[in-house]
């Protein structure tokens, strides 16, 4: 068979029967689009999380009472420093602050700006402003969601926090954090650590938890035992456990995503079956006619296989393109709410483009193979029938 003539006829049939192919391409495209969008969003969030985890300390210790976290004593920092292999012990002060009872909440984070590293990090985040001005008076950096919410409630420049002692603490909004940090900091308020302690009700001797590094990863196992031996009410979390929980959550093979896959696969199979049973009789006649005009079984199968591959590839490419545009250019409106939630502060996140080619290949195979089989099996059955019977 001359390739030129074959492709000419193939493309002719595809264009002439575009109405027949259009509906199946549309359905397939939508399914690939939905699946790809979900996977793109989760891959992107996972990527961003893994980027932040790279710079996180190795261990976090906190104090618990009756299973609930309570303030951690600052003196634990000295005890931790005495353990061989521990470095960079840092207390952390943070907590939830409710705008009013049963209303939206903000995440207050206290930072010790006297530390040189914190100072440098701050300069990177708020590049175009005089940093020294931030340290004059009680000032805070707010996430974009916080800024919008406070503005909507007529707090344009400052906000009066209520401390646990019942006193008001006015804090001025210095600047909004960059939009690239929305994934972490949309509902965040960054304050000097002492101010944060005041508002959250911590004393100078208390912190929410304490962080530290253990550069030698071989010592991590042993470290947990050493820490548990320090205090009975000490709770330890290490970075590997956090990474594992992220991986489990965003592993497309497990949990929610597997269910999503299966539902989509079942829906697709049903639609495909219904669609092809409708066109079956005309397809049967066409195949019988091609056979009657001298086409061999191989020629018919090759033609139908190539036709199906083209339809599958076109719908897959269109679905992935649409998903890419929807997620990484438009920011996945509506769908992102599933991942980011919609109850607290509204978040607008730009997703970092992440293409996991193994996942994309899996989507293609899961979608393409049943599609091709559902087309080719009936075609083969008709092709091997005598042309006269096929044309009836």
């Amino acid at each position, binding site marked *: 068979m001359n390739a030129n003539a074959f492709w000419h006829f193939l493309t002719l049939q595809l264009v002439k029967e575009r109405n027949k192919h259009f509906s199946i391409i549309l359905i397939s495209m939508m399914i690939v689009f939905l699946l790809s969008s979900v996977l793109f969003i989760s891959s992107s969030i996972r990527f961003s999380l893994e980027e932040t985890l790279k710079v996180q300390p190795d261990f976090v210790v906190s104090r618990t009472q009756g299973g609930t976290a309570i303030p951690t004593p600052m003196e634990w920092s000295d005890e931790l420093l005495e353990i061989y292999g521990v470095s960079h012990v840092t207390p952390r002060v943070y907590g939830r602050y409710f705008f009013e009872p049963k209303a939206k909440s903000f995440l207050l*984070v206290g930072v010790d700006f006297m530390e040189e*590293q914190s100072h440098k990090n701050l300069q990177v985040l708020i590049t175009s402003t005089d940093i020294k001005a931030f340290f004059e008076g009680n000032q805070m950096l707010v996430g974009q969601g916080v800024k919008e919410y406070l503005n909507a409630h007529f707090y344009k420049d400052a906000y009066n926090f209520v401390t646990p002692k019942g006193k008001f603490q006015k804090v001025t909004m210095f600047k909004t954090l960059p939009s690239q940090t929305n994934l972490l900091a949309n509902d965040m308020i960054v304050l000097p650590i002492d101010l944060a302690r005041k508002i959250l009700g911590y004393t100078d001797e208390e912190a929410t938890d304490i962080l530290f590094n253990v550069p030698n990863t071989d010592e991590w196992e042993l470290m947990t035992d050493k820490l548990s031996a320090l205090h009975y009410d000490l709770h330890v979390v290490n970075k590997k456990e956090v990474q594992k929980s992220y991986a489990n959550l965003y592993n497309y093979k497990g949990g929610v995503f597997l269910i999503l896959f299966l539902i989509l696969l079942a829906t697709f199979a049903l639609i495909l079956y219904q669609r092809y049973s409708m066109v079956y009789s005309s397809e049967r006649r066409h195949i019988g006619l091609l056979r009657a005009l001298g086409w061999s079984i191989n020629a018919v199968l090759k033609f139908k296989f190539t036709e199906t591959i083209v339809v599958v590839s076109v719908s897959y490419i269109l679905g992935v*393109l649409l998903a890419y545009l929807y997620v990484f250019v438009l920011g996945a409106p509506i769908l992102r709410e599933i991942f980011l939630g919609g109850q607290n502060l509204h978040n607008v996140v730009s997703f970092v*483009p992440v293409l996991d080619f193994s996942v994309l290949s899996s989507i293609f195979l899961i979608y393409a193979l049943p599609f091709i089989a559902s087309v080719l099996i009936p075609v083969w059955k008709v092709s091997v029938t005598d042309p006269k019977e096929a044309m009836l």
Partner: protein
Amino acid sequence: MIKPFVSFILFLILMVFLMGSHYLLFPYEKNSHTIQTMAKLTNLSPLSLSVAYDESSFNATYPEMPAFGRMDFLYER
């Protein structure tokens, strides 16, 4: 191959090319640097999930069990 089909394929190739360009030219370094700086500043890495934080849904008997209707299981407690 016939013209309408060729035009369509060329259009698809153009779209894939645009997508590829967007992907390759995306400022990953700048993005990573900003978000990592934020994480270094606060020492916090969990997502800013827009969930209603409700203490009453916490079960003291089974603290490891996540509450229904929440996605804040990523927060380090």
